[in-house]
């Protein structure tokens, strides 16, 4: 046991798993305190996550933007940057994808990639700004990103109202030639809203892994994340890598927006509040230990929890906000891994005697 605790790789898996379990236990306690039956609550929750083909389809659908948001957060994190602006980058990506999807008439083979790339480009531009300001003026990226989130929120809804407004608080629908919706995947999962975006998501996870672990540029990015001064000394252009990392991270976030715009909704609403997906991305990246596979698993878990929450509410009366509480607690547990390490370390020592 003691040996296991010292092994970083094992801890990387152990901490998220223990945190998720602790979070679910805390959720059960809250249900008990609220006078609900936790067993019944979790049973209907897991039923809603993967009890039927449709539930699985919806879980995977909900997972796509979450995974991309998580990839965006994790990518920046590897370069030592905290991209809390995924939400704003997602919104501008969403708008760009819907605009291209609505305004052009093209064959699907060109239209879909164009709309997807537009989303990625918009997200990249939005993230470039905090990256550039960090590299050039040493302004903390967290604060700039938060401000950029609000600018994105109000600007996108104003742009939709001015140029794309179809009434009823939404933009026009995108053309069918830009849609990621798939009748094949929908049929496979009993008419869920599952769409081809999941393929883009998996590809993005592979791209992230490949860039970071298999290219010289990725090595530079991670080196900057480990130690900026050492990297500078070794001749790496720290500023340029910061900007690049933010832009790539923003591109992933923009893709998350395209998943909503071209896949699930086919339009964009005039939001007055954040979607929350960008912030959930932070939770996903943390729980997934910033690794590609971990993020896919974590987003599947969180996506499932979120899609199943209404069903749990319907079946057992537990307010669906319970899920938000559980996710918040899981973030606390992962972030406070110090505590889990300490407890596991203690347990290990006790066992060795």
């Amino acid at each position, binding site marked *: 046991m003691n040996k296991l605790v010292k092994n970083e790789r094992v801890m990387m898996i152990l901490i998220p798993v223990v945190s998720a379990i602790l979070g679910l236990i805390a959720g059960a306690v*809250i249900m008990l305190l*609220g006078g609900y039956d936790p067993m019944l609550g979790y049973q209907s929750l897991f039923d809603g996550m993967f009890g039927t083909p449709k539930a699985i389809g919806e879980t995977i659908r909900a997972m796509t933007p979450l995974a991309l948001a998580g990839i965006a957060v994790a990518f920046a994190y590897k370069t030592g940057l*905290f991209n*809390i602006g995924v939400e704003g980058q997602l919104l501008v990506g969403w708008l760009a994808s819907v605009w291209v999807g609505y305004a052009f008439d093209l064959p699907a083979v060109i239209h879909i990639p164009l709309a997807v790339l537009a989303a990625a480009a918009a997200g990249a531009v939005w993230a470039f*700004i905090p990256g550039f*300001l960090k590299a050039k*003026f040493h*302004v*903390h990226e*967290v*604060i*700039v990103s*938060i*401000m*950029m*989130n*609000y*600018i994105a929120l*109000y*600007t996108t809804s*104003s742009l939709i109202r001015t140029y794309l407004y179809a009434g009823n608080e939404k933009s026009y629908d995108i053309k069918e030639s830009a849609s990621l919706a798939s009748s094949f995947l929908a049929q496979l999962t009993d008419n869920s809203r599952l769409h081809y975006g999941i393929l883009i998501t998996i590809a993005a996870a592979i791209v992230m892994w490949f860039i970071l672990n298999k290219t010289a540029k990725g090595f530079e990015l991670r080196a900057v994340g480990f130690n900026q001064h050492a990297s500078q000394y070794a001749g790496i252009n720290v500023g340029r890598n910061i900007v690049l990392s933010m832009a790539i991270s923003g591109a992933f976030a923009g893709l998350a927006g395209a998943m909503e715009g071209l896949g699930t909704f086919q339009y964009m609403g005039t939001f*007055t*509040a954040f979607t929350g997906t960008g*912030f959930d991305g*932070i*939770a996903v990246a*943390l729980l997934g230990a910033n690794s590609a596979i971990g993020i896919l698993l974590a987003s599947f878990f969180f996506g499932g929890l979120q899609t199943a929450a209404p069903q749990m509410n319907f079946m057992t009366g537990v*307010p669906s*906000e*319970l*899920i*938000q*509480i559980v*996710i*918040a*607690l899981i*973030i*606390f547990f992962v*972030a*406070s*891994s*110090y*505590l889990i390490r300490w407890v596991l370390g203690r347990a290990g020592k006790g066992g060795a005697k």
Partner: protein
Amino acid sequence: MNFLEVLAIIIPAALYSAAPLIFTALGGIFSERSGVVNIGLEGLMMFGAFTGIVSTLLLQDSLGAWAPWVAIVIAAVVCAVFSLIHAVASITLKADQTVSGVALNFLAAGLSIFLIKKIFGKGQTDFIQFRIDKVSIPGLSDIPVIGKILFSNVPITSYIAIALAFAVWYIIYKTPFGLRLRSVGEHPMAADTMGIKVVRMRYVGVMISGMLAGIGGAVYATSIATNFAAGTIAGQGFLAIAAMIFGKWHPIGALGAAMFFGLAQSLSITGAQIPVIQDIPSVLLTIAPYVLTILALTGFVGRAEAPKALGVPYEKGRR
């Protein structure tokens, strides 16, 4: 409409919407001056608004018009305790402070609506019967010209907020406590060597920020929103963070920034009545605070420097 009449609309409206921002931004100063980033202000404000409304609803039958005032005090206490979660995670357990703050926001949003649904059986509360009313201050409001602009139609909480900003300035810059607070945020090891309890000071900083953000949220709820639902606090806390930074972590600066943001906010609502401003698209006024904050950080509007040890957990004996 002449210029003075315009001012008589704009200024009271700005003071009105600035009060919650001022309280919360002042709270942020305590936390960040002690070296702990507090992105959780948004969640703390939300929990303050929640506590404020629920307490008012419970107390209004027995206390009448005093209910919202008592509710604000309750919110202050509850949020000081609630902020302990952030303190324990980020100070004792050395969690990433930004992450912990984000988690606190999630938790506040989830928990408050969960409890509302549990208590009231629906997603929003009823409207409170007694709110913190706008008053005209007797005597002062009769002063020609400025009386109507500065002392009419403003809730008392706005004046309390302004007075508090000066009090906070005194505490932070003129008392031993303030000096210790700033020192653990600038150079915790030096402070530790001088016998200042770094961890305790940081806990105090975070709890005061929780208290003030709770007051800010409750003031917003009992004077502006008058009920509580999921969207009641949407970005107010982040706007307060922006005000704190735009004000360069200085109480009077934060006061000015919060008033200015309050002005921008009220202009985007009342602007339709006012010539010239009605021609500016309201989105520009809405995003102005955020754009200005970025410019302030970049140095175009005077450079803002954060406390040196901000965001760094303190570990004894580490250099």
